[in-house]
């Protein structure tokens, strides 16, 4: 821009040049302040004899973690404990997001239902959960779940499943030789199913002929996998849970901390999502539905092809915020012993090493990246959906 009208103005009066100078000054100030803070911090930490740096990540942690999806023992390092906690945070966030979306969509639709009772129930659910603090709800679910369940000695038993205050115990499948073959067959059947769906879509656009691709591919995947499993000689053995002196031992266990956090996060966020879904659907003009019906489309297709794509454009941006909230709220799990990032890194690790700045920095970095990834994905999805608009 500055090149176009720089004929008569002096260098300093040129708007483009001025903008550049201001930006440069701002940059210098920001860098200087940042350097000052950093330098000040370094000097003070040194004065107080507080250790700095990330060397502690290679030192043995020495503490146990209740839930670890990768191998972890007390002899492992703080770095590995960090990864374990990171996985726990990811797992609870992703499962929470999926569950909250399902609950939100169902409750949002229920609140719009013609059925008086269903609509009122949904309203009560939404208004109650939206208006109570999440931490309170977490404690409620944790202690309510614990109070309702029996002591390990009086476990509720269904076959090889046990249910008590310590969690839900189920048989743990242990893969034997030959399972690789089954997994390969499973993956190949999925690839084939995707191919089938693509082919069916193409044919429908070209010829108008319809083919039940989804049901066929589901049947295909199940049939191929089961056949492969039988052909390989059922290569799975189960580690069965058994009663021991204190607990049920062996098998797979789903602990109450995980269940409580998941329920609290998904029902709480679900209530907000329900309102977003309701708003989205109400934003689509009733005339659209009428027009679709007059074309002879059945109700299911009207919702899927006409209302939902338009509603999604309204729904996605606020939905993104709810997903971000959920991911960040997962940190409250620390209060009820769910070993997620804040509990393990800012709780135990910080206390054993005393390195507040490094550990808090690590946590900020993780939550920052987690939120940004969700944002990027949702923005991409939003763009994809808004292309539908003409």
């Amino acid at each position, binding site marked *: 821009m500055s090149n176009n009208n720089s004929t008569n103005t002096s260098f300093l009066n040129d708007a483009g040049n001025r903008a550049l100078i201001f930006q440069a000054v701002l940059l210098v100030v920001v860098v200087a302040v*940042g350097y000052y*803070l*950093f330098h*000040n*911090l*370094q000097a*003070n*930490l040194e*004065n*107080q*004899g*507080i*250790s*700095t*740096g*990330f*060397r502690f990540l290679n030192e043995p942690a*020495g*503490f*146990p*973690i*209740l839930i670890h999806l990768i191998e972890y023992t*007390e*002899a492992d390092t703080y770095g590995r404990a960090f990864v374990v906690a990171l996985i726990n945070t990811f797992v609870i966030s992703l499962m929470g997001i999926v569950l909250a979306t399902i609950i939100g969509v169902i409750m949002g639709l229920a609140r719009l239902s013609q059925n008086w009772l269903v609509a009122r129930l949904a309203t009560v659910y939404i208004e109650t959960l939206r208006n109570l603090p999440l931490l309170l709800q977490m*404690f409620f679910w944790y*202690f309510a779940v*614990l*109070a309702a369940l029996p*002591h390990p000695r009086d476990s509720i038993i269904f076959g090889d499943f046990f249910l008590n*205050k*310590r969690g839900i115990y189920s048989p743990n499948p242990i893969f034997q030789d030959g399972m690789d073959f089954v997994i390969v067959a499973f993956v190949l059947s999925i690839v084939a199913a995707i191919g089938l769906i693509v082919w069916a879509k193409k044919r429908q656009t070209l010829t108008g002929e319809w083919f039940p691709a989804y049901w066929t591919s589901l049947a295909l995947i199940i049939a191929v996998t089961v056949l492969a499993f039988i052909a390989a000689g059922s290569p799975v053995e189960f580690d069965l849970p058994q009663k*021991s*002196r*204190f*607990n049920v*031992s062996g098998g797979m266990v789903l602990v*109450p*901390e995980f269940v409580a956090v998941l329920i609290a996060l998904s029902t709480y966020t679900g209530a907000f999502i329900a309102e977003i879904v309701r708003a989205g659907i109400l934003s689509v003009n009733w005339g659209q539905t009428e027009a679709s019906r007059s074309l002879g489309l059945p109700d299911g297709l009207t919702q899927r092809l006409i209302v939902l794509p338009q509603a999604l454009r309204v729904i996605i941006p606020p939905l993104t915020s709810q997903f971000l909230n959920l991911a960040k709220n997962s940190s409250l799990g*620390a*209060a*009820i*012993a769910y*070993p997620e990032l804040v*509990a393990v890194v*800012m*709780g*135990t690790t*910080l*206390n*054993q*090493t*005393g390195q*507040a*700045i*490094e550990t*808090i*920095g*690590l946590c*900020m*970095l993780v939550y920052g990246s987690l939120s940004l990834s969700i944002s990027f994905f949702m923005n991409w999805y939003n763009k994809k959906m808004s292309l539908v608009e003409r």
Partner: protein
Amino acid sequence: MKSNVGKILTTAAVAATISAGASAATLDDVKAKGFIQCGVSQGVPGFSNADEKGNWSGIDVDACRATAAAIFGDAQKVKFTPLSAKERFTALQSGEIDILSRNTTWTYTRDTSLGLDFTTVNFYDGQGFMVRKDLGVESAMELDGATVCTEQGTTTELNMADFFRKHNLSYVPVIVQKADEALSAYASGRCDVFTTDKSGLAAHRSKLADPAAHVILPETISKEPLGPVVRHGDNQWKDIVTWALFVQINAEEMGISSANVAKIKADTKDPGIRRLLGVEGNMGEALGLNADWAYNIIAEVGNYGEVFERNVGPKTPVGLPRGVNNLWTEGGVLYAPPVR
């Protein structure tokens, strides 16, 4: 280099809090503001616990009160900051509190790498296990496969892990952010075992609905010397807090209590006691205090024996025996250097 990048990222957020704690002369700051800011627990009966009116009491509270008595001649000039285990060191590092007196275990790592100094020990403790009586467990060695509840951010967490590893016992750890919620989880049956320092077990047991239904197992699995902590590098402040406690131990050894200190000060001919109580010379001067600093500690807070009996002794709900926390002359390990 890698560590530098991380530091730059977080510098802006936390630099302000850390730099606030950089000033050296805590005594001057405390004198200027007129009270001591004392970091305590969120409620451990006998150590630091607030009643319904918000009055704090306990052994750890008295450590701060003794320091206040030494400086101001008034044990009430203390303000308390309740802290969770995981908050406590940061609160002291950042200068939010002047003394951390929160049943904190003196360990090598904490003393050397946190920028903190442990003054001295005001309670010798050890970690133990509490279980329900009806489980029929008599020894910690029988705990294979048990679920264990404990508070996060304590030495307890590590000792527990070490104990189970050393004896090759399996266990399920449930580590809760706050002691009270860890206790609730235990009370609700989530865990078979609750573990913390034995004094803490006794204190927490007194909070349970039916204390008699729970037993503390005989094993002591660790050494837990508890004591007040100050920031590293302020030697004068560390000396004051240390000697406030030494005065109390010496007073008990010399038979001086809050009841008789005024009379002894007036009557005694013992040069040691005369020096201690500021009748002869000025022992307080070296600490930047008045000559009657020790007198004030004993008069206002009492000697160590009084503090112990009042807060955790057999007649209190916590009900701990003197045990190892007795004077060296009585078979314990309390041995304070002489005031001379």
